[in-house]
C-alpha cells in the first residue's frame, strides 16, 4: 500500500494537527475526563448547555494521545452543538466511525470512541444518572 494509510486520511490528520475547539471552557455546564489506559490517551471534554438546560451550545476538549483519539475529539466538538442530551446519549460507536469517515481497526476502536464516551458519561453525571470519577475505554 506504501505511503499513506486508509486510517489516516486527510480529515483525520487535519483534525489531529489542527484540533478544533481545543482548550478549556471558562464557564462549562459540565466537565468530564477520561482515559484509554492501553494507549495512554487522555481527553477532557467541557460542555456548555443552552438555557433550556438540554441543548448543547458549545463543546471544547483538551488532552493528549494518538491521532485517532484526538481527531475524534476534535470532530465531536463540531458535531455536538445543537444536539440535545438525549441525542448525545443515543450516539454509538458507529456514529463515531461515520464521523471519522474511515474504517477503524478493532484494536483502535477504543481510541475512536473515547471522546464520545467521555461526553456521554459527563452528561450522565450532570443529570445524576451515574457517579464516577473518570471514564475508561478498553
Amino acid at each position, binding site marked *: 500500500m506504501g*505511503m499513506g*494509510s486508509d486510517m*489516516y486520511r486527510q480529515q483525520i490528520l487535519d483534525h489531529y494537527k489542527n484540533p478544533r475547539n481545543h482548550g478549556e471552557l471558562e464557564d462549562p455546564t459540565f466537565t468530564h475526563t477520561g482515559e484509554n489506559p*492501553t*494507549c*495512554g490517551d487522555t481527553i477532557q471534554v467541557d460542555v456548555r448547555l443552552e438555557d433550556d438546560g438540554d441543548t448543547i451550545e458549545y463543546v471544547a476538549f483538551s488532552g493528549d494521545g494518538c*491521532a485517532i483519539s484526538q481527531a475524534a475529539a476534535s470532530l465531536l466538538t463540531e458535531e455536538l452543538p445543537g444536539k440535545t442530551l438525549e441525542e448525545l446519549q443515543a450516539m454509538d460507536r458507529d456514529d463515531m466511525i461515520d464521523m471519522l469517515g474511515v474504517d477503524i481497526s*478493532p484494536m483502535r476502536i477504543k*481510541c475512536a470512541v473515547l471522546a464520545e464516551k467521555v461526553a456521554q458519561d459527563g452528561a450522565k453525571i450532570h443529570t445524576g444518572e451515574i457517579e464516577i470519577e473518570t471514564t475508561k475505554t478498553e
Partner: protein
Amino acid sequence: MGVQESEPLDVERIREDFPILERRVGGDVESPGEGDGDDTPLIYLDNAATSQTPDQVVDVIADYYRSYNSNVHRGIHSLSQEASVAYEQAHDRVADFVNADGREEVVFTKNTTEAENLVAYAWGLAELGPGDEVVLTEMEHHASLVTWQQIGKRTGADVKYVRVDDEGRLDVDHARELITDDTEMVSVVHVSNTLGTINPVEEIADVAHDHGAYVFVDGAQSVPNRPVDVKAMDADFLAFSGHKMCGPTGIGVLYGKREILEEMQPYLYGGDMIRKVTFEDATWEELPWKFEAGTPNIAQGIALAAACDYLDDLGMDRVETHENQLAAYAYDRLTEHDDVTVYGPPGDERGGLVAFNVDGVHAHDLSSILNDSGIAIRAGDHCTQPLHDKLGTAASARASFYVYNTREEVDALVEAVDEARQLFA
C-alpha cells in the same frame, strides 16, 4: 567468543521453515488467516512479543495429536508410555538447553509470568515478612515487577528498585547499595524487553549471594536469543517462555536449583504432584512433578523440546550475532534523523530489539501506519509502565528481530518510518 568467526545464519533457508512469513496482510481482520484484501507482504518485527513457529515444531505438535496423544505419568498402556517418555525427556532437553542438571531442575509452567508467580507464591508467601527486602530493577517487566510488588504488600516485605541510568544501563553501584543482608530476593531481567540492555546478571548474582539472597533471572528475552548457562550465571531461578523461542504458546519454564526447589513447598495442588493423599493430609511427589499439578501441557512441553533442537541446530551463538547485528543496524539507521529517540544503550551490545519514538507521531499511530506497509511492530508500554513513566512517554514503538529477519526488512522499517514522518509533518 568465536562468535565473529562462526558462519552467519542462512536466513533464506531458515525462512522456508516459517510459512507464515509468506503471509500477505492488510485485508479483513475479522477472520484470521489470509483474507481477501490482503495484498502486502508481511514483515514481522514483533518477535520480542512472540516469535514465529517453524514447521519442524508445528509438525511435532500435529504428530503428537495424531499418533500418541495421551495422559502421562500414571498410564501403563502404550500411548501413555510414549507420551510420558516424550514429556519427561522434554524436561531433560530443556535442562540441557540452559545447562541445568537434569529434569529435576526444570518445571514446566504456562509462561514466564507463571514461573515468576510460582516462586512468589511458593517461596515468597512462606518466607517473606516485615523487615525483609526484595530488590528489583526499574526495567523489570510487569511479570516480575507487579508480582513481587503485590507479594511484598501481602507479606510486609519492602520492594526496592535498582536505578536505570540515563543511557538505559543498570546502575550496578546502586544495586550494591540496595542489596543488603535484609535482602531475600533479587529479581533481575537478563535482557530488557524495552531498552535492549543486557544486564550483568553474574555480577548481580554475586552481590546477592554475598548477602544470602536468591537471584531470579527473567530470561524471557535472553534464553531465546543467546546462549544462556545457569551455572555460569549462578542463577537460583531462571524463567522463560516457549512462544518467544520458536515454541508454542501455553508453555513456560521455571529453572530452579535443585536444593532450593526441594526445600520449597508446592504451589498448585492436585493430581500428579502428590505422593499419598488421605482425607486429612497429603505428601508430595519428587521434583519436578511436585510443581506440576494436574494434567500438564504435554504437547506444548514436547514441542518446546523440539524448539530447543531447532535453535541448537542453528547455533545459539550465531542467533545472538545475527540479532545483535540487526539491532545495531536498526539503531544506526533510525537515529539518522534527529526526531527519532531510540531508548536504551547505544553501541553494539544490545538484545535484538529497538524501542523508539518519532517526535509528533504517537507510537500507536506509527504502528497502524507501518501495518499498512505490512510491517508488524509493537506499540505500547511493553509491560514496563513504570520504566516508560521514567522515560517520559506513555508508549513507544518497538521493532524486534529474530533468526529469519534481514537487513532489507530493517530498511523497509526505516523507509516506512520516514513515510509516517512525512504524513504527520
